[in-house]
């Protein structure tokens, strides 16, 4: 089947969906929520931390927004077209959009943001922009991106946190990092920055001039800063806080809080990031260098148990390298089900002699410690002689950067597309000492390199899919790393906060559509 290459989604479609979602929304009210930890700054693009994305995604906007299925939705761009060769992307901007200071938002702002601001400050946008040959404003409301060659994930890189639109009239020609407006961010979003009391609260108020009719419903959003985890849980229990974004309370508190009256929980709203927990396995030396050993580890681990007991049953046990939220998942692969006997067979076959190997837990708190204990026990039960080495964050970074480990826990964001969040773990040119975030396991496979590189620039999607399916088969067989879980990071909220999670980044841009039924 041949799909139409040119995509055009009208604003009417969006108006229809939001009307369907919101049954008779009420206006007004302020939502109290949590931001943890306190962000270092609020200007997206200049600051990339997760808490900045969460707060500022409601102040700033990108050209596109993404559904929980990671389909692009209109935001500042109301429609877009892709040329037949996959090299030219034309965005038609919404008219009548103004910045929070009253200036009009135009195509020049887009060109400035992408070509100047992000190229200078933003490494994750830069990774995408290296594929871009030119960015031109053909008129006030049309921007054309011309790519050097097709780049599959291009359309999924316009999320506000990655590719924020910043006002040209305030930033052009200034020293970005010391710009006076950094303390008072100006965006186009549904909420305006009002006040930031350091260590206490960040207050956002309704943007009365917002371009979408009737939105936002809320009068404001207050992001409270409460450094202690137990106190955050208590603040939610005693109803000071209405919304707990994912990751703001400890895992073991979640079942208790979720069982309270008038408390709802959703697992949606993290599909764009979809954190993927993995077990690094050192492919260079020791028993872990043997493919059969790595397969045995996969069979030995009871991943369903870890999901049910440690992650409250939330999340998903992946088939192989591509998670369920990544595009182009090959679901014909045979799962590595919990099968200790198969693991023992594989170990016998390779002649494992009981050589001691070590496991480094991720020093991110109780859940990860317990997880390492469970995996250690799983491995011991099939006869692998494994010792845990406790370490702190610095030690963990250093040992992974120096490749001084046998097994180690980690988790990585998938960013919706294999070329953005997955290939980096397996490409051999991504092997470099000193960083715990690249191809740390030292996996080298020419065919895999070829397939990943080809797939990133293949066009259209059918071509990419075929390449990615093949790469998954090879990875599934070679097991360069252990695939533990796609983590479920639930958002907890009072049930009278309606329509909170409407996109693949959850509360990061969710307060736009939210309303209070009080």
């Amino acid at each position, binding site marked *: 089947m041949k799909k139409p290459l040119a995509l055009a989604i009208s604003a009417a479609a969006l108006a229809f969906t939001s009307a369907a979602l919101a049954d008779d929304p009420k206006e007004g009210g302020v939502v109290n929520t949590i931001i943890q930890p306190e962000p270092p700054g609020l200007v997206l693009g200049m600051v990339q931390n997760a808490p900045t994305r969460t707060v500022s995604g409601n102040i700033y906007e990108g050209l596109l927004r993404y559904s929980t299925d990671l389909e692009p939705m209109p935001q500042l761009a109301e429609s877009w077209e892709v040329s037949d060769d996959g090299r030219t992307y034309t965005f038609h901007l919404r008219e009548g959009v103004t910045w929070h200071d009253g200036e009009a938002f135009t195509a020049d702002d887009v060109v400035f943001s992408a070509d100047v601001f992000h190229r200078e400050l933003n490494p994750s946008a830069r990774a995408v922009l290296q594929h871009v040959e030119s960015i031109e404003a053909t008129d006030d409301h049309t921007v054309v991106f011309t790519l050097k060659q097709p780049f599959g994930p291009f359309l999924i890189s316009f999320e506000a946190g990655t590719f924020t639109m910043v006002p040209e009239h305030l930033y052009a020609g200034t020293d970005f990092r010391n710009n006076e407006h950094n303390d008072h961010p100006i965006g186009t979003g549904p909420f305006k920055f009002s006040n930031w009391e350091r260590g206490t609260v960040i207050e956002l108020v309704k943007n009365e001039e917002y371009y979408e009719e009737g939105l936002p419903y809320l009068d404001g959003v207050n992001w409270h800063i409460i450094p202690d985890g137990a106190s955050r849980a208590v603040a939610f229990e005693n109803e000071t806080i209405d919304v707990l974004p994912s990751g703001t309370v*400890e895992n*073991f508190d979640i079942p*208790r809080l979720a069982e309270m009256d008038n408390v709802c929980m959703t697992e949606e709203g993290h599909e764009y990031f979809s954190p993927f927990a993995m077990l690094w396995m050192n492919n260079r030396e020791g028993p872990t260098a043997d493919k059969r050993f790595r397969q045995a580890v996969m069979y030995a681990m009871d991943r369903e*148990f870890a999901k049910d*007991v*440690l992650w409250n049953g939330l999340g998903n046990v992946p088939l192989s390298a591509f998670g369920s939220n990544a595009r182009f998942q090959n679901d014909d692969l045979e799962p590595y089900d919990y099968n200790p006997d198969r693991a023992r067979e594989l170990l016998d076959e390779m002649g494992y002699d009981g050589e001691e190997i070590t496991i480094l*837990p991720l020093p991110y708190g*109780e859940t990860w*410690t*317990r997880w*390492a*204990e*469970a995996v*250690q*026990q799983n491995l*011991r*039960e099939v006869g692998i002689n494994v*010792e*845990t*080495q*406790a*370490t*702190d964050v610095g030690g963990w970074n250093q040992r992974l950067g120096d490749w001084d480990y046998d097994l180690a826990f980690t988790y990585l964001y998938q960013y919706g597309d294999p070329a953005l969040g997955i290939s980096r773990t397996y490409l051999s040119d991504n092997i470099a000492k000193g960083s715990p975030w690249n191809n740390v396991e030292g996996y080298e496979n020419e065919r895999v390199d070829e397939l990943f590189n080809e797939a990133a620039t293949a066009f259209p999607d059918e071509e990419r899919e075929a390449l990615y399916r093949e790469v998954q088969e090879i990875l599934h067989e070679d097991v360069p790393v252990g695939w533990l879980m796609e983590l479920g990071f639930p958002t907890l909220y009072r049930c009278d906060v309606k329509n909170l999670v409407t996109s693949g980044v959850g509360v990061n841009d969710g307060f736009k559509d939210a309303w209070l039924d009080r």
Partner: protein
Amino acid sequence: MSFFARFAQNRGALVGLIILLLIIAMAILAPLLFPESPWRMVQRPFLPPLSQDGFPLGTDTMGRNVASGLMHGAWVSLLIGLVSTSVALLIGVPLGAIAGYYGGIIDDILMRFTEFFQTIPNFALAIVLVAIMQPSITSIVLAIAIVSWPPVARLVRAEFMSLRNREYVEAARLVGQSNTTIILRQILPNTLSPIIVLASLMVATAILLESALSFLGLGDPNVMSWGYMIGAARTVIRQAWWLSFFPGVAILLTVLALNLVGEGLDDALNPKLSRER
């Protein structure tokens, strides 16, 4: 009156000894009663005590048998207590003996060195040492030994200072015995009783220190100790009281027993000083 009769006169000490023997029995019987690793996830998590056969104390956050953990933990706690105390004695006794026997500049140097350790809070130093050396049984034993030898050194020094001018020591010197012989054969045996009493209390302190370190997550991640059990249970104390209660009681009883035994030993070894009862 025999040694044991004097010891048994102190009823508390007798009770302490019985508890201690029970705990030692627990440690020895652990591998027989629970041959499986205490880390093994055997049942549904969070089973309350007595709710199911074979799990008298319930299961923990991961479905591990609390009773098994408690018994295997006894062995770990006693081992750490005894070994670290022995190491502390190996450092403290010679230093104290040399300082007390020779006096003068040697005494000054050694005592300033000792004071250097005494001025740093025990627990803080232990944390730093374990963190630097990476948590493992060896590093924990060493850290506990390093923070607990100074009192031994001071005690032994004081004993040596009071004994070094006794007639029998001067006699030994007159006969031409070497300093080493005098220290090891003449004075040291006479300082043993206070050292033994102190050591029994040090074992108790060492167990507490190990528990505190494990509680903070600085325990050896490969051994199930009581402190680890409490530390891991702390986060779920509102859902599952039994996870921290039983290991807590075990630590309390062990430390109490060791203190009682220490007191009994004191009475038995120093009959003249013992209080009238």
